[in-house]
């Protein structure tokens, strides 16, 4: 089973080639051939040049998968948003990739009426309802253009793969919508319906029918029920030509674990210490893109950085603690410099003795082939250098290392340390707020008068109390699993302050290399303040649930289980009997309803890599939300 991202990419490429599956296969085999023995197998599929038209959703999906040059390889010459003023390009076919909404359909019909392109290949991100199909048909008949519509496809691709094992549905404010007492049933139904549609797409893209597990009695459960129903209906209605390939006997089906955000709120608010989580939390990583504002001679400059799927540095370091990453940036830069030196040395001549008619051109040629790779590496490193520097700044400004150290051992904090922190004028209100909420969630019993003292301190720090009010009410009727997370995290602090010298050496090294990378040399002052902390290994609640389900241990027996493939006569409740399900699973799709973050993603990947047998865990959520964003949602909920 290919990764979700790869599967989606293949589907998009097939779509660009007019849903011609052979083209993809041919391209793939050609790629394989290159890897084996150099020259390419000729591509017999003739490239047809076409324009690509997408709406916002389509753009978000494609931009994560294909770069402009890859689009070019697939024959896309011009790509345009649907809602722009597009000029007619006659005699060129157009591929549309849009959401099935009435506005989009109307816009497409307008395009047809205006006779913009030669032929139209319409692809919808999810199922196009019959009513809209009829609308479209009516509009085309009216303008006498229905023949020009060459294809109408439902692509089932409405989710965004951020990384190989990470996807997002890119919704907004789902946690608030689902937990707000003020939300009407219609709103909630709407959200669940959309989630189910997207999850169906995920499953369809993978082409396998999963076994669905979920906790009882919350939003996740209702989504699971509907998804189960949806898949069943699909199989029922489409007998032999459905979207799911029949898995070979013996191949294990993945398990789709639906979780509810209420299970573990603390990990959404935690301060973090690994690279990807920091980039996400502090720099607001959105759709794999980071925007950093820097000040240059009084002017504010926005810099954009794209994190690519092939970014070697990101892939290597996204799960590492930050100081280690900073160290690695440095060593990578040294390596880069060494390689460059080597190339220059071998290709450039230092003395006339070296003039060797036989080898000279060879080395020059080698240098030229090495050049693109080197520039590529340089660009990546520059980017991470920038990111790391900005992170340093922010960490130092907000004293995040202190927060992180305290949160690592949150169960052991006593009143004085907490109050001291809350009263510390140097730290920002937001961080205090987060810290206190984590503290609140992680400790079962907080004495009343302590609580009062905390609240006074919080109010003095200028922290709004909405989120806390909300959490109080949540805590009163939901048993929080979070408390147990912190058990056994002794030594989290482990007096890491002593390792300042590690940073010291890093600072010295980096100061020399920074100039080359175009980063200011004033970095050392930032680094000196940041302590070298290493996070202790601990599993988040979500990871523990996933583990127990995948291993088939008895902890998760009370989770509901659906098997859309099994015949209905068995009845759902019968299948939940654990005896049938005790077998372990090799791959899982974890989906959190109501927002997820990189911390949980990392944690799951750590778990998946841990075992003797490689497990595959794909993580997804309705939205990938930062702690700040999540706090805002809580705040709104509490102030109702």
């Amino acid at each position, binding site marked *: 089973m290919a990764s979700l991202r790869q599967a989606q990419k293949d589907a998009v490429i097939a779509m660009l080639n007019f849903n011609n599956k052979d083209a993809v296969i041919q391209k793939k085999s050609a790629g394989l051939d290159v890897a084996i023995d150099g020259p390419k197998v000729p591509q017999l599929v003739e*490239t047809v040049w076409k324009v690509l038209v997408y709406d916002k959703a389509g753009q978000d999906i494609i931009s994560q998968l294909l770069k402009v040059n890859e689009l070019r390889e697939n024959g896309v010459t011009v790509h345009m948003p649907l809602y722009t003023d597009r000029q007619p390009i006659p005699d060129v076919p157009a591929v549309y990739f849009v959401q099935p909404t009435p506005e989009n359909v109307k816009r497409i019909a307008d395009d047809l009426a205006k006779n913009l392109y030669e032929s139209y290949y319409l692809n919808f991100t999810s199922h196009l309802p019959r009513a809209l199909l009829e609308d479209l048909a009516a509009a085309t008949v009216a303008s006498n253009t229905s023949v020009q519509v060459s294809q109408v496809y439902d692509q089932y691709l409405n989710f965004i793969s951020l990384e190989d094992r990470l996807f997002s549905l890119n919704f907004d404010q789902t946690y608030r919508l689902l937990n707000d007492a003020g939300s009407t049933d219609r709103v909630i139904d709407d959200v669940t319906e959309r989630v189910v549609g997207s999850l169906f797409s995920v499953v369809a893209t993978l082409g396998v029918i999963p076994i669905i597990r979920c906790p009882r009695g919350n939003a996740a459960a209702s989504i699971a029920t509907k998804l189960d129903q949806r898949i069943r209906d699909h199989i029922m209605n489409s007998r032999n030509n459905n979207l799911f390939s029949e898995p070979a006997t013996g191949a294990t089906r993945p398990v789709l674990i639906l979780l509810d955000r209420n299970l573990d709120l603390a990990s959404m608010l935690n301060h973090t210490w690994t690279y990807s989580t920091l980039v996400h939390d502090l720099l607001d990583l959105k759709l794999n893109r980071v925007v950093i504002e820097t000040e240059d001679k009084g002017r504010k400059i926005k810099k954009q950085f794209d994190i690519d799927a092939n970014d070697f540095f990101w892939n290597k370091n996204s799960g590492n603690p930050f100081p280690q990453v900073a160290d690695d940036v440095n060593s990578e830069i040294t390596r880069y410099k060494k390689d460059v030196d080597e190339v220059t040395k071998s290709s450039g001549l230092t003395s006339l003795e070296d003039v060797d008619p036989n080898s000279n051109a060879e080395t020059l040629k080698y240098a030229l082939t090495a050049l693109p790779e080197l520039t590529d590496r340089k660009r990546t490193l520059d980017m991470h250098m920038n990111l790391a520097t900005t992170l340093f700044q922010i960490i130092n400004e907000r004293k995040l290392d202190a927060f992180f150290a305290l949160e690592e051992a949150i169960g052991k904090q006593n009143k004085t340390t907490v109050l001291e922190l809350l009263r510390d004028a140097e730290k920002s209100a937001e961080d205090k707020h987060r810290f206190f909420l984590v503290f609140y969630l992680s400790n079962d019993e907080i004495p009343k008068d302590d609580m009062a003292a905390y609240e006074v301190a919080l109010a003095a720090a200028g922290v709004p109390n909405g989120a806390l009010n909300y959490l109080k009410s949540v805590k009163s009727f939901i048993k929080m699993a979070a408390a147990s997370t912190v058990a056994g995290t002794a030594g989290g602090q482990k007096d890491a302050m002593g390792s300042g010298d590690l940073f010291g050496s890093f600072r010295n090294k980096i100061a020399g290399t920074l100039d080359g990378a175009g980063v200011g040399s004033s970095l050392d002052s930032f680094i000196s303040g940041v302590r070298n902390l290493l996070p202790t290994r601990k599993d988040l609640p979500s990871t523990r649930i996933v583990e127990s389900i995948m291993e088939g241990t008895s902890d998760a027996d009370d989770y509901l289980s659906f098997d859309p493939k099994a015949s209905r006569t068995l009845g759902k409740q019968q299948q939940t009997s654990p005896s049938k399900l005790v077998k372990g699973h090799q791959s899982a799709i974890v989906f959190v309803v109501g927002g997820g973050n990189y911390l949980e993603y990392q944690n799951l990947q750590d778990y998946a890599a841990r075992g003797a047998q490689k497990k595959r865990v794909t993580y997804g959520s309705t939205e990938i939300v930062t702690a700040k964003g999540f706090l805002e949602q809580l705040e709104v909920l509490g102030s109702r």
Partner: protein
Amino acid sequence: MTIRDRTTEFHACAESLSQRNNVASSALLGQHSQHAKSEFTKAASQIAREINSTMAKLHSLTQLAKKKTLFDDRPTEINDLTLAIKADITKINRQIALLQQHQRSQQPQQPAAKQIQEHSTNVITSLQTKLASTSSEFKSILELRTQNMKDQKSRRDQYTAPPTASASSSAAGYSLQGQQPTPQQSPFSIPQPQQPMFGLPPSTSSPLFSDGLRNRSTAGSSDSAVIDMGGMGGGSQQQLLMQSNNTATLEYIESRGQAIESIESTIAELGQIYSQFTQILSQQREMVQRIDVNVMDTEMNVVSAHNELAKFLERLQGNRWLMIQVFGILVVFFMLFVIIS
């Protein structure tokens, strides 16, 4: 067909609707044919097809060139193919240039069609990139072939030219072939008058070079005394000569030949490097863009901002006119008032 494909459903739907509306479906079909392909598209797809066929040829050449054995060497086929590919590449190159010219000449006529222009520019770029990759592949295959030939030559030397002492005895054995050296011209070079190997000692008696004749060494080509060094794509050609009755001269010639050969290959490689440079330059442009680079959005915003400003100006002008009117009325009233009073 999977459930994804709803084309038929759509067309059935359209069909039934059109029947309901009494629109003859034949009219629909007639509509479609009006879309005649433009010159540009036709030419471009023609070129694309040719590139594809060239690539197919290249592929078979690769397979031939990879064979390393002495005995299954089919120079005729290889040479024919290289010639054909070479011709193809130059032809395609010319066509692309023509197409580009055509496109440029079209530009002033349609100043509004920026997107058409973008489209055709991109088509040409993609054609060029494809051609460039094809020809660089071609070059690398030729290099491979040269390398193979070098290897073959060194292997052959081991057998055909044993240590100099036995030169005279071996001469008898080789006399037949030795008398008729048949130069193999490297087929992919631009045909140009062959230069006689310079510095040839006068003692070489026999007419060594049958100048310019492209007679393939059909008889005993695998171990003929004249060894062909495949030239680099840049139009090089080498001849190496082995004269069995004069080893000293032979060695001399050989060393000269090697020197020339290495120089030539160096030059060719340099040429290749330059072409690679241009390729890298052209690729740099669009390497790392994502489609959501918000240029389009910005443009949209700028346009709408402009519209808003225009609207505002309009309103302002309207206001000004109103102001003048009101003022005028006031003045009139004032005058009236003055006159009356």
